[in-house]
């Protein structure tokens, strides 16, 4: 069991990921803006974070940067996801090399792949 925090402003995408991961035994909470995502991270202390890039108020890259600056954040696997298609290779490299995120998913992705990534990143689950 991994406790997952999803930061996603699109309610359908958020519901979908939450329902799917919850159904597979990973209790999931949702935050819908960048700042809310950061405060949820501090409050909930999740085992893993999934962060959309295009978020209101503070984008996913900024959220990732802030989270990874904390000591707990460095221990928490973080996956970025985005539907922005352009330069996805560049964005993936930036996310992993510069922001130290554990992965970059291009929407739409297969939920089974997401589950595999989650269970690989939180082996204790």
């Amino acid at each position, binding site marked *: 069991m991994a406790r997952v925090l999803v930061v996603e402003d699109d309610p*359908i995408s958020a519901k979908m990921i939450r329902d799917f991961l919850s159904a597979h035994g990973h209790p999931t909470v949702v935050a819908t803006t960048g700042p809310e995502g950061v405060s949820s991270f501090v409050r909930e202390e999740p085992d893993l974070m999934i962060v959309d890039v295009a978020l209101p108020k503070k984008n996913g890259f900024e959220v990732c940067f802030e989270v990874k600056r904390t000591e707990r954040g460095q221990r928490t696997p973080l996956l970025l996801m*985005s*539907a*922005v*298609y*352009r330069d996805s290779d560049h964005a993936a490299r930036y996310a992993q090399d510069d922001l130290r995120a554990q992965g970059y998913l291009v929407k*739409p*992705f*297969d*939920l089974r792949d997401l589950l595999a990534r989650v269970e690989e990143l939180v082996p204790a689950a």
Partner: protein
Amino acid sequence: MRVPAFAADVFAPGHRRKLWWGLWSGYGVAAAFLALAALGVTLGVVPFRWAYVALVGLKVATNSASWWALKRDRFVFETSSLNLVADVLAMTGAIYWTGGVLSPLLPIYAIEITVIALLTNLAVTVRAAGLVLVVYGAMVVATALGEIGRLPPPVALAGGVTPGYLVAHAAFTVFVLAAPTYFASRILVELRAKQRALERTNEALMEAGRNKSQFMANVTHELRTPIHGICGLTDLVETGIYGPVTEEQRDAQRSIKQSALSLLRMIDDLLELARADAGRLEPTVGPVDPREVVQASVDAVRWMRGTKDVELRVEIDDELPTVESDARYLKQIVLNLVTNAVKFTSEGGHVTVRARGEPGALVLEVEDDGPGIAEAERESIFDPFHQVDGSPEREYGGVGLGLALVARLADALGARVEVDSELGHGATFRVRLAAPR
């Protein structure tokens, strides 16, 4: 009579306003001349001559012929030319009857040429100036040879620079200065308005260009996000976490997902095309396995056939050269070619996808037994949004993006796309990639 090429733009429909303007100004100038003559006669500077009335009458007559022609849009060129010739004759007459080479009226030629230059084009203006030179020269020569009588200038008739002469001279000077000034400023005002409009359009275009990139990024995001939702939720329903699912429902779920993915591919194609047209295709080159490219593309197309009975055959040579290219672009090329082939092949037909080696090249080939492409269409099928039958009642759907994208992607990869086809006997699209041995 056909309008000669040098004057074609002057008599083009968009230029009519200037012709009308020239026409009204012709009446104005005739009236001004009549007034000047009356003033001259009243002040005793020039004697009354019926010739003055005749000259103004000539101008009014030809001007009215032009008016009649413009109104009916017939013989416009002929009457306008006649009007111009009458102008030159009338002015030369006025100069002759006010003293010939000694006449103070010589500047009126300059007015005429200025007005013609502003209202017509260079070729017409040069010809008008030539006509002035010939007619004036003829008058001067005829006077010098004694063929026509020599007449005294107004200054001699008035008996020197008298107050009356000065008043007539002042009125004439005002006329000579006012007419070109008025015309030139009117034309300049109009030109400036046009220039401002062009500048505004230009600015709007530049702004639109700047916005386009941002717009594309936004569109991508906005269009992909709901598709993500559709695909994900269909997956969820299918896995049964929202309750038991029957086999038929599961089947329908898969179809929903496939449709969403096909929509996604269309969006991706459109965006890729936009990038190509902006010159921003940047292939990521690496070793490519042609088998994987063909297989992945064919697999993606298989379900797309839906219930359409088209047989998809794959023929891959055992020995294939490896190439350095962009696997994603190659897949997009083959996928589009196969999708296209399936679309244009009727029920019971075949589509064959081949990968084979040639000396120094890898050839990917997609053959169909569809309607074929006429010789004349071979080039234009690669234009965006083009379809051989573009009519609303056309037989085949789609937006006509596929081949345009194929051409651009192939271009970015340095590959060649060839088409073999005979009308009624299918078509073969061939992509040839250079392969180092």
